[in-house]
């Protein structure tokens, strides 16, 4: 026998993720895959290709757009969906604001947590019974305890104390009308696995994942990007009075709403260098870059209970 008899760790993780996606397709009537243009969801699209080609994906792609996303990422999102020939649905937090279902406390408030409202509205609009997402258990401690198939009630709420037992690879995606399953095929991947997979599969990424010069300010120990252009050319994240703008060589480790994703200083301008940097880094992914998770020790858990991914 020429082939090895056990899978390498990346092959194993990929095989598990393919199996999970096919279970969603096999068990659910109307699923959707959440695609933001970020690195985790880019891996998810490759897994979907491996799971379903030469057929089409048995689900559309959907992005909940806060209206405050990096232009490079939005452009990449549209390009990638078109290349794959798959349907992309975009629903916008700004539309929820117009409808009055999202009310910001003040104009500058981060729209990140309000994505939950728009997501639930989209689930209702299309009648989705399952959402496939790229969340990973290593990202955050509430996620470390969430099931791969996570049941949400009519209000999209996660009840951490009342989760369905999940054994072997026998997944239970049954739900009643109005209820919803969130499925996380790359639950068992770490940030390192994601980068190694991107390297192995030669996946294309939005340019802001690689080291580039960008105007930033230093605010409470974080690097905060400023004067970021939106899709309409308008600038967001304006510096506060008295803040000194510096041009820094940075890259993003996570990509999301502009108001809550911060870059790290880096000169890693290709995937191989990023893999090396990830192997030697001393700060966690979310600790370094997600301003929203630092608010309190339990902030992710709180958001999930309210319907967040």
């Amino acid at each position, binding site marked *: 026998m020429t082939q090895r008899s056990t899978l390498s760790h990346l092959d194993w993780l990929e095989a598990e993720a*393919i199996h999970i996606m096919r279970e969603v397709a096999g068990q659910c009537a109307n699923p959707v895959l959440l695609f933001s243009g970020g690195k985790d969801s880019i891996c998810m699209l490759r897994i979907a290709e491996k799971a379903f080609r030469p057929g089409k994906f048995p689900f559309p792609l959907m992005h909940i757009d806060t209206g405050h996303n990096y232009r490079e990422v939005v452009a990449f999102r549209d390009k990638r969906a078109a290349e794959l020939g798959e349907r992309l649905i975009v629903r916008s937090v700004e539309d929820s604001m117009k409808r009055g279902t999202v009310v910001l406390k003040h104009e500058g408030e981060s729209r990140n947590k309000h994505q939950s409202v728009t997501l639930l509205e989209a689930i209702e609009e299309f009648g989705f019974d399952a959402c496939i997402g790229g969340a990973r258990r290593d990202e955050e401690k509430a996620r470390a305890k969430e099931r791969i198939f996570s049941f949400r009630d009519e209000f999209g709420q996660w009840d951490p104390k009342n989760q369905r037992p999940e054994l072997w690879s026998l997944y239970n995606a049954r739900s009643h009308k109005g209820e919803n399953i969130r499925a996380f095929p790359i639950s068992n991947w770490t940030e390192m696995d994601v980068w190694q997979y991107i390297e192995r599969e030669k996946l294309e990424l939005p340019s802001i994942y690689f080291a580039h010069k960008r105007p930033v300010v230093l605010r409470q120990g974080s690097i905060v990007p400023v004067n970021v252009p939106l899709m309409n050319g308008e600038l967001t994240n304006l510096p506060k009075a008295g803040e000194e703008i510096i041009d820094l060589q940075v890259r993003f480790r996570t990509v999301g709403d502009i108001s809550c994703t911060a870059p790290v200083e880096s000169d890693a301008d290709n995937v*191989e260098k990023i893999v090396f940097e990830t192997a030697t880094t001393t*700060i966690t992914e979310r600790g370094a870059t997600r301003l929203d998770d630092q608010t309190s020790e339990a902030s992710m858990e709180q958001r999930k209970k309210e319907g967040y991914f």
Partner: protein
Amino acid sequence: MSAREQFEDHGLLRFLTCGSVDDGKSTLIGRLLFDTKTILADTLSAIAKTSEKRGMGAVDLSLLTDGLQAEREQGITIDVAYRYFSTGTRKYIIADAPGHEQYTRNMVTAASTANLAIILIDARKGILTQTRRHSKLASLVGIPHLLVAVNKMDLVDYSQATYEKIKADYLEFAGKLGIEDVRFIPLSALNGDMIVDRGDKLNWYDGPTLLDILEETPAAHTEHTEKFRFPVQYVCRPQDSANPDLHDYRGFMGRVEAGTLKVGDAVTVLPSGLTSTVKAIQIGGVDIPEAITEQSVTILLADEIDTSRGDMIVKSSEVPAAVKQIEATVCWLAETPMDRNRTYLIRHTTRDSKAKLAAIDHRLDVNTLEKVAAEKLAMNDIAQVTFKLAQPLFADPYLENRGTGAFIIIDESNNNTVGAGMIL
């Protein structure tokens, strides 16, 4: 060639840790993550702050496994948590099962995907009831490798005699349980002796460190069987009018639960029993020559056979039994006890069948390990039962093949997963 590629990839090992808070289980996991440099500076500073807030002198590594807000408030662990670390040659997934009253249910859940269990023993206390319980559960769930870790050696002056006594006691009852592969190691999780580094206090122990043992434990789930089992998850029929080549494409998608398959092999599709040969094996539409255990692939057959989700493709020389009655060890997971008059749904591979309880042969008292008569099944109960099935299942004994020997029980009224079963 980059530095990483010089290492061979030894795949991925899933293991679980059994023990209660007092055994130093969280400290052991914290120590493994810390010594393999998995814990990053911000996490460490967060737990240092919490340690200080709680008035502890040194950084408490056990805080790393603290999870949900509700758990932090109550100071207990509610649910199975998964942790990750990598040594460069191998990736590890730790299932951390909490040790309070819901123990059986959580441990069975954590053990279902593990290939090795670490049984923690406090060197001062020796073998306790819970040690027996953990060991029995690990053997019931078919974990092939047990590692008995005698922890807190620092509190018994690193005494070799204490360690040897515990080892002898354990071997005596392990023989009765029929556990085969058991290894022993003395540790101090608190001081980091014999976890990743050997330390300098246990020089009388010349065996491998804990991490060395993890590095060499076989990762494959199914070491015992070569019988090819392929439950069909999804059927791909592209029907793309722009691409007439795909007009007749019929791909059977699934994950290989056991064994290997090559192009040209003779196969049988169950339940129809129709036979064909393998025309192609693909991943993402690209041909590969062979599929191996745990690989997710698409199989194309030479003949047109009507096949759908819930069917199983096997090699014609190794057809499993189609059973309409099963005897199984069941762990009840739900707060509502099993109702003997009700019909439940059994999910086995990708196949569902309605099922009714025919008999409870006995219940296992997990503390005394005695078989006792039982009329009902409540949460955390483990029992040997017989089910009658509406549809046949294509099953193997669980101890031969986890993938085709395991099932879950679903309550159709609320869709909850209420039980876990292992076919005898």
